[in-house]
């Protein structure tokens, strides 16, 4: 049955495009590396070969977007996505300068924003409790070389 080309599987189309984009990036990044030959492969041989393979697979997946019926593109839950990533980033940035206590309280506060059901006071209590527990466990018991309080000097 022939009909006009129409998008039947948006999820696969975007999945394929994603793979192709990664393949192009990998191919570009590998282009400076020497290929070598089969008998003595250079650092660029496998990355280049794999990027072609990934691009080819991506093309097939993308084409399936027009041939096989499939799911729509699912909606994104931005709230947990942003809040959780931000909480990890905050931890990474704060730990060495701000110390464990500050880092944990801030991380907890940001992470809690991931759900609309958070209550500020409960979250703050949780943050304080977690930082006290972590200080006792990781610095006190396990002796990890972590700074406890902010570096004010």
């Amino acid at each position, binding site marked *: 049955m022939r009909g006009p080309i129409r998008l039947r599987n948006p999820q696969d189309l975007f999945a394929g495009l*994603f793979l192709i984009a*990664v393949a192009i990036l990998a191919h570009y990044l590998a282009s400076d590396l020497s290929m070598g030959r089969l008998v003595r492969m250079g650092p660029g041989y496998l990355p280049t070969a794999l990027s072609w393979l990934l691009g080819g697979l991506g093309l097939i997946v993308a084409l399936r977007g027009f041939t096989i019926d499939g799911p729509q593109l699912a909606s994104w839950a931005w709230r947990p996505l942003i809040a959780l990533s931000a909480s*990890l980033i905050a931890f990474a940035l704060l730990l060495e300068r701000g110390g464990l206590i500050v880092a944990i309280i801030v991380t907890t506060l940001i992470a809690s924003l991931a759900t609309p059901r958070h209550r500020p006071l409960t979250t703050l209590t949780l943050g304080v409790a977690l930082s006290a527990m972590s200080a006792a466990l*990781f610095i006190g018991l396990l002796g990890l070389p972590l700074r406890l309080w902010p570096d004010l000097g």
Partner: protein
Amino acid sequence: MEALVSNLALGFSVAATLNNLTFCLIGALLGTLIGVLPGIGPLATVAMLLPITFNLPPDGALIMLAGIYYGAQYGGSTTAVLLNVPGESSSVVTALDGHQMARQGRAGAALAIAAIGSFFAGCAATVGIAVIGPPLASVAQQFGAAEYFSLMLFGLIGAVVLASGSVIKAVSMIVLGLLLGLVGQDVTSGASRFTFGLPELSDGIGFVAVAMGLFGLAEIMTNLERSQNRSEGHETVMPVHSLMPTKADLLTCIAPILRGTAIGSFLGILPGGGSVLASFSAYTLEKKIAKDPSRFGKGAIEGVASPESANNAAAQASFIPLLTLGIPSNPVMALMIGAMTIQGITPGPQVMTKQPALFWGMIASMWLGNLMLVIINLPLVGIWVQLLKVPYRLLFPAIIVFCSIGIYSLNNSPVDVLFTALFGLLGYLFVKLGFEAAPLLLGFILGPMMEENLRRALQISRGNLVTFVERPISLGLLLATVVLLVIVILPSVRRGREEVFQE
């Protein structure tokens, strides 16, 4: 036989030291603790708890990790029975009849039979490893680079074929994983690959960041999304009255436990087999051979006993390819390989000969760990019930905090925490695009090893690709790989496969 006994004796002498018993106990407890949390499966549990093992001696670390793994599986079944929220796909089946039993006030019996079945399966599979391990390892010791390359290829493709979902997308994930595995300094030439000039990347992307991001963080994100869409209704945690199954229960379950153990042990060895397939197959079999199949789904105790045994047998049996061949048959084993590498152990057949104490100690500890699970977890079930009542909005920030500390303390590197966030985002993107992240992890772990063996094989053969088909074992593995791919592409098999995963 004599060798077996002396090997196991060596193993128990290692595993039964106070230190290692403690590590095993802590691992099993922590694994259960995290695994019991709804929505967090064994893979996420192991990924999140990896960092705490890295400062331990190698045998202690691996014993603890194994403990975490089966503890997490046990925790997942507890959640499935009491809450009807399977922590992971291999507990889905347990939830079917287990939760119905709980509704009938028989939660204790369901949990006890799950523990007993798991314990028996664990014992059987442990003996299995001890029996099959040495001969398999001695075969593997004759493997050259070409055989290893073909074996890994077989393992990767096998993992995809038995997994659910689209094959081509899973293969794409493997290739993406292989590419990510190449990030860092090339061992042979010293050239930097895909490092964007960042010195932090010269040793490659940390596999803990990859695993924790893709599985731990992404899983929390999707859990929160799901609970956002769900109305606030608290799932009720079923009460546990008596833990003792009746004598009739026990008698009914003997045969299902035996069958589940057999299925699980067999499927666990296969690449990609693992516990999901094992528990599904065991459940299907019980339903097929039952006199009255209509009881299933309404609280049939066989429907708990058999899949739980299969599940645990498979988990244990999947250590066989890991310990003897050095290839992971599922993503959790890929994490074990990563952990071994960090401990300075090269996974493969030489572990058994060069570090017999480590090898047999780990096997003996599996048996001890299973025993601990039965003795400790059944009395502790009250605590797990309490834990299930803690609202998720308090739990997940705590998990995030502990994960962050764990990741950071690996290398005292904040960059690792940033990478975890990045891979969490990537993992969420994968969920939305219909990709499974597990094949990526397998490719990521196996990538560097495959490249090394490929290069070495081609160097030995002077660049002649024929070497892969000239050597009989390598040829056999490649043929098996092709057969697997052909089978899965054939339409009739594809339909059957979809049916299995739909259930």
